[in-house]
């Protein structure tokens, strides 16, 4: 068994690329060895800013011998061809094996020594290594074919069981020499074998194991905070980033001027984190403290000097932030909002100011229609008018991720109503699955209006997401719309809301866009509900868009989900499964017979249903449906026929009423009573009777059955 150490040394690897690089190194190494039939059991991969390292233990000394078979000429081929083949493989005629009229040469390939396998592996993986961005460097870069790496690759350590592995990487020395910490170590370090590597580097102030550096930072940062009587605000992203920037991490706590705490804590935290990669701390009361933790890469002669330098940089950054904070407040949000007319929202959709006006109208409508209950329309409008104003403030210009939040702060400072400030702050929410969903009425109205406008307008100009492309984040917007609606139980017809959002644009294009929008809502609803175990076909059965007619299609998301839940519960019962089978059978027969009866006409019982029908052929059918007991028929009903009619007479109105009352479980229960009669009908009654009257009557009965079921859901869309 052999142990192998590989270290690829280069100039500072970007912190964000190191995890990917470790995975790539492991993947390529395994792939290379697996190609030679070696599966690596014990493999460790590490990274620091200046090296990628790999130790593989327990490798076989050589690959297994394998037999190789080469196909030769046909049996009976001219001697010339056969001799040529033998000559190419330095084989004797006796070695040839005959099979299916063809000569084969079988050779046993001896196992290859592991050193050869590793040599090829190293040479190949350096060549094939994929970085998010790579570059050329040095004299060799006079040709564009020169080696590429994330930053100049300066040296390789490759040691197999204590011996340097011979390999050739152009322009890069391979041996047992490495280097230690950039400042705490000088000259080269000689590595005798894999076992000593980690320890030897540690002696030269390099912690090669990234996880260990992460631990040091995570625990050390928390400790220095605790020593100052504070609590570190945990930030795993910062832990990993700082571990990717250091070989010898030393967390240090510093203080900044308390006066900066006037600035909102989110701003301070963001400034510290994004620009400087510092942690922040909280005091015992959970308030942001005037302290930061930076991670040095040296054991500084005097840590106070390093801390002071960092403090100055942070102070300069915070001064800028405070300047923005104060400057922004000199102008009321309503004034800031005017500048939105200079920013293009989309070339076909006008400026951000135009969007704001649309959102304001919609928010007001959602409130005044009671779609968002208990919402003051005037407040909804006011909040919507100001919701994007912070986009033109200095602070959001500097930190775009603070959009909304800053507007909320400025609104509060201005003394605007708390509902308005909250709505401005939270109207972007929810930003993704799992994000907090607003519940405050004004916030809900503005947030929903914003998303509805974005969706309706982009659909109107036919900018729909395609495949992986969703440049306007419409998928996220529709998920937000669904979450807001479901979480708050908002009752509205989403197509009517679309029409409202396009401001009564009745063009054909917009009508088509509405259809696309509806399908999009349903599609994303399916994705969103998948995790909750809701079946996509059951959603289709209730939503039933895109069919020949969308009578009964559900556009109220809340009701739709209630129906879906009831339906899914039903179709998985025995009654449900059988009824579904009966429904499909009925539908198939009707289809096969070219039944044109169509849907059951609406009737209140007061008007004469015959008056609705012009086509003479239809009169009979409608008459049949209007008098479903069938008493006027001239032939005698068979018992099963009668039983189904009776069942329908009871179940159909009961199901319809239940749907009307949104008692969907009751509707399902009503349908369940049809199961036995429909089964019996198919067992005992011949639909395709010789007498035309019987045939027509029975087809009409099946149509009635189908339509009664259809009123609850489009069962044809349910799978199984």
């Amino acid at each position, binding site marked *: 068994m052999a142990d192998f150490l590989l270290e690829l040394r280069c100039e500072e690897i970007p912190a964000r690329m190191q995890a990917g690089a470790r995975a790539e190194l492991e993947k390529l190494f395994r792939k290379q060895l697996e190609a030679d039939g070696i599966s690596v059991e014990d493999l460790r991969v590490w990274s620091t800013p200046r090296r990628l390292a790999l130790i593989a233990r327990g490798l076989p000394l050589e690959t297994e011998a394998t037999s190789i078979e080469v196909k030769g000429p046909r049996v009976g081929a001219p001697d010339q061809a056969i001799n040529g083949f033998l000559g190419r493989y330095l084989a004797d005629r006796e070695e040839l094996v005959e099979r299916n009229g063809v000569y084969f040469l079988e050779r046993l390939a001896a196992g290859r020594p592991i050193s050869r396998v590793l040599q090829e592996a190293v040479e190949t993986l350096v060549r094939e290594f994929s970085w998010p*961005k790579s570059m050329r460097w040095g004299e060799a870069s006079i040709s564009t074919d020169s080696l590429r790496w994330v930053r100049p690759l300066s040296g390789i350590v490759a040691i197999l069981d204590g011996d340097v592995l011979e390999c050739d990487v152009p322009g890069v020395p391979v041996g047992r020499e490495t280097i230690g910490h950039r400042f705490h170590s000088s000259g080269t370090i000689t590595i005798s074998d894999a076992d000593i590597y980690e320890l030897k580097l540690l002696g030269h102030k390099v912690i090669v194991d990234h996880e260990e550096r992460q631990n040091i930072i995570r625990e050390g940062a928390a400790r220095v905070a605790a020593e100052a009587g504070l609590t570190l605000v945990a930030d795993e992203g910062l832990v990993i980033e700082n571990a990717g920037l250091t070989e010898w991490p030393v967390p240090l706590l510093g203080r900044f001027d308390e006066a900066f705490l006037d600035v909102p804590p989110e701003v301070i935290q963001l400034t510290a984190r994004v620009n400087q990669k510092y942690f922040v701390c909280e005091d015992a009361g959970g308030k942001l403290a005037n302290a930061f933790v930076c991670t040095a890469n040296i054991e500084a002669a005097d840590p106070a000097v390093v801390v002071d330098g960092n403090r100055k940089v942070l102070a300069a950054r915070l001064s800028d932030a405070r300047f923005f904070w104060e400057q922004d407040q000199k102008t009321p949000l309503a004034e800031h909002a005017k500048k939105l007319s200079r920013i293009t929202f989309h070339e076909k959709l006008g400026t951000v100011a135009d969007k704001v006006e649309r959102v304001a109208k919609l928010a007001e409508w959602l409130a005044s229609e009671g779609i968002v209950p208990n919402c003051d329309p005037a407040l909804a409008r006011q909040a919507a008018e100001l919701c994007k104003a912070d986009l033109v403030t200095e602070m959001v210009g500097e930190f775009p991720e603070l959009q909304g939040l800053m507007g909320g702060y400025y609104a509060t400072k201005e003394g605007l109503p708390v509902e308005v400030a909250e709505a401005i702050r939270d109207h972007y929410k929810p930003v993704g699955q799992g994000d907090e969903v607003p519940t405050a009425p004004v916030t809900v109205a503005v947030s929903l209006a914003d998303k509805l406008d974005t969706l309706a307008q982009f659909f109107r100009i036919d900018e729909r997401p395609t495949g992986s492309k969703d440049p306007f984040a419409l998928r996220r917007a529709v998920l937000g719309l669904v979450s807001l609606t479901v979480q708050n139980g908002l009752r509205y017809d989403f197509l009517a809301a679309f029409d409202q959002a396009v401001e009564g644009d009745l063009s054909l294009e917009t009508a088509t866009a509405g259809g696309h929008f509806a399908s999009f809502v349903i599609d994303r609803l399916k994705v969103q509900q998948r995790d909750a175990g809701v079946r996509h076909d059951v959603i289709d059965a209730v939503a039933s868009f895109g069919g020949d007619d969308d009578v009964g299609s559900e556009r109220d998301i809340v009701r739709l989900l209630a129906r879906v839940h009831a339906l899914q519960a039903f179709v998985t019962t025995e009654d449900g499964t059988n009824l579904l089978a009966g429904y499909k059978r009925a539908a198939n027969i009707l289809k096969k017979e070219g039944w044109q009866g169509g849907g059951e006409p609406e009737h209140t019982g007061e008007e004469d249903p015959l008056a609705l029908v012009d086509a003479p052929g239809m009169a009979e059918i409608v008459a049949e449906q209007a008098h479903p007991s069938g008493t006027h028929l001239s032939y005698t009903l068979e018992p099963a026929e009668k039983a189904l009619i009776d069942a329908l007479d009871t179940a159909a109105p009961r199901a319809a009423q239940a749907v009307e009352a949104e008692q969907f479980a009751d509707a399902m229960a009503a349908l369940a009573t049809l199961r036995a009669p429909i089964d019996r009908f198919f067992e005992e009654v011949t639909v395709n009777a010789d007498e035309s009257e019987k045939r027509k009557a029975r087809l009409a009965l099946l149509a009635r059955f189908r339509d009664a079921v259809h009123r609850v859901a489009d069962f044809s869309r349910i799978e199984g």
Partner: protein
Amino acid sequence: MAPGMESEAKSPARESAPDGRDPTRSFQDMILTLHDFWSANGCVILQPYDMRMGAGTFHTATTLRALGPEPWNAAFVQPCRRPTDGRYGENPNRLQHYYQYQVILKPSPADIQELYLASLKAIGIDPLAHDIRFVEDDWESPTLGAWGLGWEVWCDGMEVTQFTYFQQMGGFDCKPVAGELTYGLERLAMYIQGVDNVYDLAFNQHGVSYGDVFLENERQMSKWNFEVAETDALFDLFAKAEAECRNALSAGVPIAAYEQAIEASHVFNLLQARGVISVQERASYMGRVRDLARSSCEAYAEKMSPEWEAKYPGWRLV
């Protein structure tokens, strides 16, 4: 030279040491130390390009010399003009005119990082007392059709240098790659001298401060950049620079064309500071400047390539 400075300089030795250079106590000594350092390491020490430009990278010693196969090592100070960064002399960190120290090393030497760190030591930054870090920061200039990979170098959390390996310039692959170092001189000096306001920097060891030299310039130039500059004349200048660039290109003198591209770029920056270019127009102006700069770089590379190919058999521009 401002009259005030002369009298300061004439007044006999103040408390600062008259003998010996001290990069930690004087802005000019820091520059002279860098000159010495890079001179000793084989660079030609150039003087600033005598045109207004937004960054040292625009200097032909960087852009144009990054093209072609010939070795080229140069170091120079380049004054940079960023009209929109002017703060009327009231901000301790921001200036509309400041200095960059540029080093260009082609091909990039294997020990370029070590050389750079040695230069920091020379100006008084001890890497065991200060935390020096190489933090990812790639560089791209669509204007010059150029990009490179590298870092911003941090000293105790402060960015003091931009370090880039040029991969492309003027749309051409750099063959070979050049390493470019851009030191932010004022920042570095503020750090080394331990001052919090740029105007408090000691310019020399004889009592002249950075403010003595530049404060009034910042006040007047900020006013001119933001409030005074005649915009019609600027639009006119832009158009003329653009036309002259084309003229020079068609006459086969791409270096002259490139100068006009730099001119157009700066005039565009002034127009920006004057706030007379709308968001929509902005993209169009940037496109025009880019077109000039790239055309000039391309014309230069194409004009020079027969010579380069003759000197370096097998080398091809593309």
